[in-house]
């Protein structure tokens, strides 16, 4: 019986699967992206739902034992706000007013995946109760809800931006390497020029070029475009280098002899061999996009209020006062960190799996 051998790709996947840390990270990212997609349903409130009586409300305690010492449906108590003589916020739990947590409760309206309107939320409490499992921000907006809604923007900017860079980087790099000569020269000079501009400065300058009249959606698109513009150049350079060596391969020369068109050669024979590098590069550059968006929002140049992005949630939290008195506000920072570290670990594991020259390192 002839055993079908494993293709390099399947071998790579097997190696990858052995790395338990990386698999865990894939799982974490799946949870994050999944939550982002279903943000409307999973979060108790819409991102814009504010109640000023709950400004900077700390995370609420969920009780399961009621006043008769019996097990009951989980509930939270009313929180009352007052200021002490130092103008510090004090929240006291009012045990006489309690609000049970219901599942599949009706609440703020939203659209499932942006299409189907609905008002059902996974969990919540009935008005006039208020549920802040992870606390509230300065306007009394639920942090958990804003984190989930913010995930949509922060996580998608990375994916979309990287896809655009990836597409252009591959294509332009492949063309440049394959054709060589003047085209190659021109394209490489352009790449070097873009890479010569300090990234942060270029980002600022490009952002300043965006007209101030743009609404948030347009700013979102503009930010993606800006990042893609900065990102494709370095990928293109490497792909070009690979293309130069690949175009001497026998199957390429054979295809040429057969009269296959240039574009077809590039896309079917050359670029697929760059996949292993490209995928790793993509994985490792997504964190840069996420950090870039948070940096822009931190400076007030990114996504604006009332829309939530992890970046602008973090910028509201970045102050000595906030760290000292309302530390739960810093959760977005932790999530940004978590996402980035997952992408880094996955990218690293993929590189180890796809690049055979590094394999020997892992062995004895």
């Amino acid at each position, binding site marked *: 019986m002839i055993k079908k051998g494993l293709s390099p790709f399947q071998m790579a996947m097997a190696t990858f699967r052995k790395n338990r840390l990386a698999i865990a990270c894939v799982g974490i990212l799946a949870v994050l992206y999944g939550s982002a997609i279903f943000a409307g349903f999973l979060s108790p409130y819409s991102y814009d739902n504010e109640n000023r009586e709950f400004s900077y409300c700390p995370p609420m305690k969920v009780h399961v034992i009621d006043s008769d010492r019996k097990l009951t449906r989980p509930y939270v108590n009313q929180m009352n706000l007052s200021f002490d003589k130092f*103008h*510090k916020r004090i929240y006291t739990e009012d045990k006489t007013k309690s609000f049970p947590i219901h599942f599949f409760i009706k609440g703020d309206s939203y659209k499932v995946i942006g299409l189907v309107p609905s008002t059902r939320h996974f969990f919540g409490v009935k008005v006039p109760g208020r549920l802040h499992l992870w606390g509230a921000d300065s306007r009394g907006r639920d942090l958990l809800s804003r984190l989930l809604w913010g995930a949509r923007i922060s996580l998608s900017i990375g994916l979309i931006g990287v896809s655009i860079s990836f597409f252009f980087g591959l294509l332009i790099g492949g063309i440049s390497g394959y054709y060589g000569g003047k085209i190659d020269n021109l394209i490489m000079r352009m790449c070097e020029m873009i890479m010569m501009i300090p990234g942060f400065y270029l980002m600022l300058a490009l952002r300043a070029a965006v007209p101030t009249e743009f609404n948030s959606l347009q700013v979102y698109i503009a930010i993606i475009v800006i990042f893609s513009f900065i990102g494709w150049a370095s990928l293109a350079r490497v792909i070009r280098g690979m293309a130069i060596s690949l175009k001497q391969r026998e199957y390429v020369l054979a295809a040429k002899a057969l009269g296959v068109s240039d574009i077809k050669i590039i896309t079917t024979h050359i670029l697929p061999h760059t996949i292993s590098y490209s995928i790793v590069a993509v994985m490792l550059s997504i964190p840069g996009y996420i950090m870039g968006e948070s940096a822009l929002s931190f400076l007030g140049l990114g996504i604006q209020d009332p829309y939530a992005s992890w970046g602008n949630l973090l910028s509201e939290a970045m*102050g000595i006062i906030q760290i000292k008195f309302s530390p739960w506000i810093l959760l977005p920072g932790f999530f940004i960190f978590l996402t980035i570290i997952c992408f880094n670990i996955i990218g690293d594991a993929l590189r180890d799996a796809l690049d055979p020259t590094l394999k020997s390192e892992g062995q004895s």
Partner: protein
Amino acid sequence: MKRNNRNILNFKDTAKKLLILLVVFLCVDHLSFAQETTFDKHGGQLVFTATSDPRSFNPIIAKESSSSGVVGYLFEGLTKIDGITLEVLPSLAKSWEISRDGLTWIFHLRDDVLWSDGVPFSADDVVFTFNDLIYNDAIPSSARDIFTIDGKIFKVEKVDAHTVKFVLPIRFAPFLRSMATGIMPKHALKSSVDDRTFNFKWGIDTPVSEIVGTGPYLLELYQPGQRIILRANPLYWEKSDQGERLPFIDRIVFLIVQNQDVSLLKFLEGETDSCRVRGTDYALLKPLEKEKNFTVYDLGSESGNSFIVFNQNPRLNPKTGKPFVDPVKLSWFQNLEFRKAVAHVIDKKRIVEITMNNLGYPQYGTMNPNSGLFYNPNVIKYEYDLKKAKQILNSAGFIDRDGDGILEDKEGNVVEFNFFTNSNGAERIQIASIVRHDLEELGMRVNFLVLEFNNLVAKLIANYEWDAILIGLTGGIEPHFGKNVWVSDGQLHFWNPGQEKPATKWEARIDEIFSAAVQELDDKKRKPLYDEWQMIVSQELPVIYTVLGAGVSAVRNKFGNLKPSLHGGVFHNLEEIYVKEEYR
């Protein structure tokens, strides 16, 4: 035995003498001890924080507080204002007389004042400052409007080396107060006026020795992005009540720190001596007062104001022929009911809680309790009431006709407009965000944008392309100095600037009030006029006020002679403040 007796007598005698000597000795010692307690108050330094670099050291040109805050210590006016009583006191002028008709003023200048380069101060400098600088059309001086009444300027003439005559076109109540404006040195600046380079003179790259003033401090060093150092002017003329040379503090340092958190930390660690305490900082700072040895001074509400203004400018843009404001929107903004409804959704109480940790005040008018005599507490107060606002809008024809949650006006136009504020203040952006949210609760669609300050100002006073703006102005106790905002042809009459004749009856009335009140020299008669003005503003709502911060400062306990006051702050008498001995 006789000899014994004599000895005893001698002993008593000596003892008495000794006793007398001892007493005298103690007294003498006590006197010299008293001498030692009066130490030399001169010396030491005071460190402030500045939030940005200055943009000019030229007080006539400099408009931002980052520049004027520094430059204010280098120059003086003919008069000055007492930081506590708010009275007008002599400064460069030691006395003055007023003619019976109130139009001619004679100032007798001090003869012992020298410019910091040694040249004597004289009437020539006063005449130069007004005729060649303030009234010079080629120089964009912000003071010019204050000194121009009904288009007429003051006649300023030199009588002799130390006497100046001012002839006013009409009586001008705030005249003495306005004479606190800084006097510039003719000998140092005349040439630049003549060759038309004055507007670039004394910029931030000027060698410090060139900046010449009569004030208590000189500019010693400017390190871009880091600090500005002032040192005591050795030629300064003023003396303390005990005849000591002023100022006492040798050096004033402005540390340039953009980040508010960093400046807070620098104060706590002792690098700076004074720090502005926002409402949100109070909970962190106040408990540390004893431990870190400083005092927090709560001086009441800030002066200044913060308001929302809607664009009611009906005119056409001369370049495009189209109106500045979309006529549909214009009809809303010009509708008093619309503005009343907006006034009812400013959630002042919660805004103060959220942005200032409850250390702030709701604002109902342009003058506030800190403004002294002319504050009118009886203006109309619009309370936060979403339901009432909705009712007002419905009665005015703004109804949600198609059930989409957004209001439409009588013609069916969706109520949508843009709303701007400036990017420099986190607090202001928060206030604007909150207002935006509530306007949307009402059913309006608000496009909120944060703009860079210059951009915003250009919209307000130059190209008029805006719908609603949240902005703040500095304030003061003299209403007339804010005239540019309130008279109908004023440049800062934001909702409809530069009118040729008043567009409404109430604006005409305000013009009359300002015209009459400025000529009324008796404060008691001025008050009812200004009270009426504030009432009209609260009735007609050209601007809708929001909230006011508290003027709270934290100051290290190392200074003597501090006399904090509502109006002057902590350091209004800076020349007399000294560093206590134990902190040298």
